[in-house]
């Protein structure tokens, strides 16, 4: 086995070095305009915008990272508001979040924004449509991996989030009941994901400082 790998390394070493050299050269060239993987963009924004806002005529997409909007200071502020550390896989400082301004003609009538949230069985994607002040108009899952996914995705559960705002979460004014029997951790993850979504909307979109990207 050792002979197997050592001969492979020797045979391929020069070739791999060449590829790595070119990779590093390209990376250096692109360092000034780089972005990380997008956090959670809509799979089909046209469909979602039409379904949620039949009066809409279009939408405008915007990508921004916490790093661009306020750096480490903002990252820590978001963690404080959330009441815990952000995940090192899904929620790093350089994840570009996608925001969609829903338009009726030239007028912005709502925002749509999604986040990834770690669940018990895998990632979930939590999408909120809000008014311009950040009050929830619609909530839905773009991806949900719970064994009781149908209960979470049911309108009877998701519509309870309508009209809530970030202040309601911060002040603990949430009276939504867990719709499941055995997926309480996914329920708590949902509440965290909704709160995180509202915090990011406030910090990266509604209250974004002039001059940041």
């Amino acid at each position, binding site marked *: 086995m050792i002979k197997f790998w050592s001969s492979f390394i020797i045979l391929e070493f020069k070739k*791999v070095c060449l590829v790595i050299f070119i990779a590093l050269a*390209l990376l250096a060239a692109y360092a000034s305009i780089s972005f990380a*993987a*997008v956090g959670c963009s809509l799979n089909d924004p046209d469909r979602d915008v039409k379904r949620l806002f039949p009066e809409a005529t*279009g939408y405008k997409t915007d990508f921004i990272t916490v790093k661009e909007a306020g750096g480490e200071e903002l990252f820590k502020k978001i963690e404080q508001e959330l009441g815990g550390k952000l995940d090192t896989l899904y929620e790093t400082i350089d994840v*570009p979040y996608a925001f969609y301004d829903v338009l009726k003609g030239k007028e912005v009538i709502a925002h749509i924004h999604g986040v990834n949230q770690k669940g018990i*069985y895998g990632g979930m994607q939590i999408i909120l449509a809000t008014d311009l002040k950040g009050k929830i108009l619609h909530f839905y899952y773009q991806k949900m991996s719970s064994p009781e996914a149908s209960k979470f995705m049911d309108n009877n559960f998701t519509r309870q989030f309508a009209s809530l705002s970030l202040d309601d979460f911060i002040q603990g004014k949430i009276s939504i009941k867990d719709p499941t029997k055995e997926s309480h951790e996914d329920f708590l993850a949902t509440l965290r994901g909704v709160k995180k979504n509202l915090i990011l909307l406030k910090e990266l979109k509604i209250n974004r400082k002039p001059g940041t990207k």
Partner: protein
Amino acid sequence: MKIIILIISFLIVFSFYKNAAAEYFYKEINLIGGYSDMDKWIGKSETLSNSVGFEDFRKFSNEYGDFLTSDLQMRLAYDSTENSQEAWALEVHNAWLAYKLGLGRDLKIGHFDPEFGLEPILDTHGTILQTLAMKDIGFNKDWGVALEGSLSELDYKAALQIGSGMSVRHRDGSYLFTTRIGTPTTNNLQYGLSLMRGEVLQSEGMSTFPLDDLLSDKVVTKNRIGLDGQYLFTSYLFKGEVAYGRNDDDDVLGYLGEVDYTLPRNQKIQMELQFQSWINDLTEDKSDDSTLIAGLSYKLNQNTTLRVAFSHDFNLMEGREDDKILVQFYYFGI
């Protein structure tokens, strides 16, 4: 050819245009190697070579919203099985512009997935496990135009392409028409029906420049009907597709089944098991090419993944079997 060069030129110019409404830029490194009983040391899979690349994705907007999307995704690839003169290749994967005809309708032009089966709804750009597209059509990208849109309960896509795959050629009247109608991509259960009709050139490799090698100057007449589906249930993602039709006078059939499992307590780890079979002539015994693949991936961070895949080919040339192991380092991000 001139039109295609024009599209790529536009995309390169767009990539330096700073006033786009939204943009993101990925860098990519793929290092892959392994061992096969038949080929011994190998430095590539069916679609992946050691390579560096990038993806430049942009949305252009005005005061009425987004009106144009562009995507340019290229690789500089090194094939260690070729001599030094022919080892390097430029692979153009995505090179398209999508113009919004209205909310829910886009007109696309450039290089993109044929609208058939699982391929247009899955991202297989950096993965060892692939869909049936390479065996079914012969390639997983082609040059042309497409109309994509959504109805209240269904998404539809239709594409007319030149039938040459990665390279830009038009010979022997080649073309490819594909269309797919399917459920929205936001459902946990998704399925679709696809149709294909084409006179398709068959080539080897993933190179765009220099041109990949043609297996024949003559086109293969392809007719197909296909069904595909995906179902996400807890930590399992099930995928399947089947395609039936004719290659010239031969009846052909292909099918694929795959299950992906994410470890609940360590979601950086994913296991994959896939079986795919392509029967080149239903009237002949042992005309199939069947492969079982077991894969394991570990996400080091948001951008970097390590993968290993073991595959067993049941029936390659002259009825021989083959076992293969591939190891991959894949970076896609900053």
